């Protein structure tokens, strides 16, 4: 047997998936700006992503803010620069942890659900049924989900930022006995608009990645229950990796000089 055959097959399959994903992405984006629009589904997806993910995002950012306060204090107090704790919490939460953690949580919650829902619709022929009822499945299923992701993730991250900073504040005031006014003043003075803008931009990009991967994997799943399971796993794993990679790139874009 030719040892190059399996290598070639894997490579060709990889190229095929990249091509299919590219076409899927371009198609979805082009349908985003072409009528008809399905506001009813857009609204219910926005509620699903924005409202129902709130508890998970709130908890993760809250505890992350708290842990950063504790750790940075234990590091910075040896240099007797405790005053910087407020700014460390503010920076890490708004620039990095807020968007990344919220996106990872939404990937696990919403991306997986989308892949499973669309995957089940695919294997039970519901997506074909849409076409036969002269409804474009891209416009009806994919576009509202992607738009909802792009719109709602920044909102989630904004709320997460506030909660994360509040988590750090709680630790510093009640556990480390900082001065409340100084802490708040430090936080406010250090905050720059670029922190928030970069965080929001990241959130929108992550929202796009999560919903795109959820829809793409679900849309092309095949082979019954097992296929849907695979699609769900792929959606979460691939979007998590893409979130972390694109996070680095966006940070590079915003902050490297």
């Amino acid at each position, binding site marked *: 047997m030719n040892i190059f055959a399996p290598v070639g097959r894997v490579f060709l399959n990889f190229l095929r998936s990249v091509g299919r994903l590219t076409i899927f992405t371009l198609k979805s984006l082009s349908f985003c700006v072409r009528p008809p629009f399905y506001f009813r589904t857009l609204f219910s997806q926005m509620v699903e992503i924005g409202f129902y993910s709130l508890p998970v995002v709130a908890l993760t950012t809250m505890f992350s803010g708290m842990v950063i306060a504790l750790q940075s204090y234990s590091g910075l107090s040896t240099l007797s620069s405790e005053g910087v704790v407020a700014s460390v919490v503010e920076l890490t939460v708004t620039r990095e942890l807020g968007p990344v953690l919220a996106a990872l949580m939404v990937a696990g919650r919403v991306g997986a659900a989308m892949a499973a829902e669309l995957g*089940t619709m695919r294997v*039970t022929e*519901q997506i*074909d049924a849409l*076409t*036969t*009822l*002269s409804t*474009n499945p891209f416009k009806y299923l994919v576009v509202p989900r992607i738009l909802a992701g792009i719109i709602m993730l920044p909102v989630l991250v904004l709320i997460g930022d506030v909660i994360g900073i509040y988590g750090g504040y709680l630790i510093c005031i009640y556990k480390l006995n900082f001065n409340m006014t100084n802490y708040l003043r430090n936080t406010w003075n250090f905050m720059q608009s670029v922190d928030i803008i970069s965080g929001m931009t990241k959130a929108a990009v992550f929202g796009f990645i999560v919903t795109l991967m959820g829809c793409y994997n679900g849309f092309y799943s095949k082979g019954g229950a097992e296929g849907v399971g695979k699609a769900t796993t792929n959606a979460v794993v691939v979007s998590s990796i893409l979130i972390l990679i694109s996070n680095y790139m966006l940070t590079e874009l915003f902050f490297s000089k």
Partner: protein
Amino acid sequence: MTDEIKVKMTDVRKAFGKKVVLDGVTLEVKKGESLVIIGGSGTGKSVTIKCIQGLLTPDSGSIQVDGKEIVGMNAKELESVNAQTGMLFQGAALFDSLNIWENVAFGLIQGKKVKRAEAKEIAIKKLAQVGLSADVASLFPDELSGGMKKRVGLARAIAADPELIFFDEPTTGLDPIMSDVINDLIRSCVKDLGATGITITHDMSSVRKIADKVAMLYKGKIIWYGDVADIDRCHNPYIEQFVNGRADGPIQMEIRG
């Protein structure tokens, strides 16, 4: 019945990888006629109707609906062709997230922009036509039995008064009595609408009940075509074997695919 031709397939070929599914299918369906395509599992029946609906694109050959070429048509034109067709799926393929009347009215609301209240009235009328009372209108698909789902699927297929209706194994998975009920409904719905019907099945009792014309598909080719009355006296060994359901004969089941 007129002599006008509704669907015309000429030398349609379709292969998935190396597996040839349709190997030159040529078929004509006249307006108002009910054609039943029979054949064993995996002989390309489903692929045939998916090609006519534009859900799959054949590798070569031509498919015309009302004289318009389907192959190579863009999504928008295809949508307008699909607006005049209906389809009953094997597993009914009802939308899980919508209740029964919304399912039935889907094509009207999304495709034809009928007002919701008006669409609901039509949906309830169509449900009555398939023998379901208005009580089920607000239930969800998972609350219905298999036979009821098929009826709802049928109501959805005829909701927009289509000119061409496809039935994908309408009686598979139903008990003999329910099968007969569904067959009767199909017959009466197609007749009432004056529509053209294309059914795929391997259930001989449905064939005798629904069909005007029968085509038999074997190894991607139409090996027999004629009036339903002729299936018992055609002396075609393939037809005889299939109609009588014998394991031995010219048709060899592929045990390994």
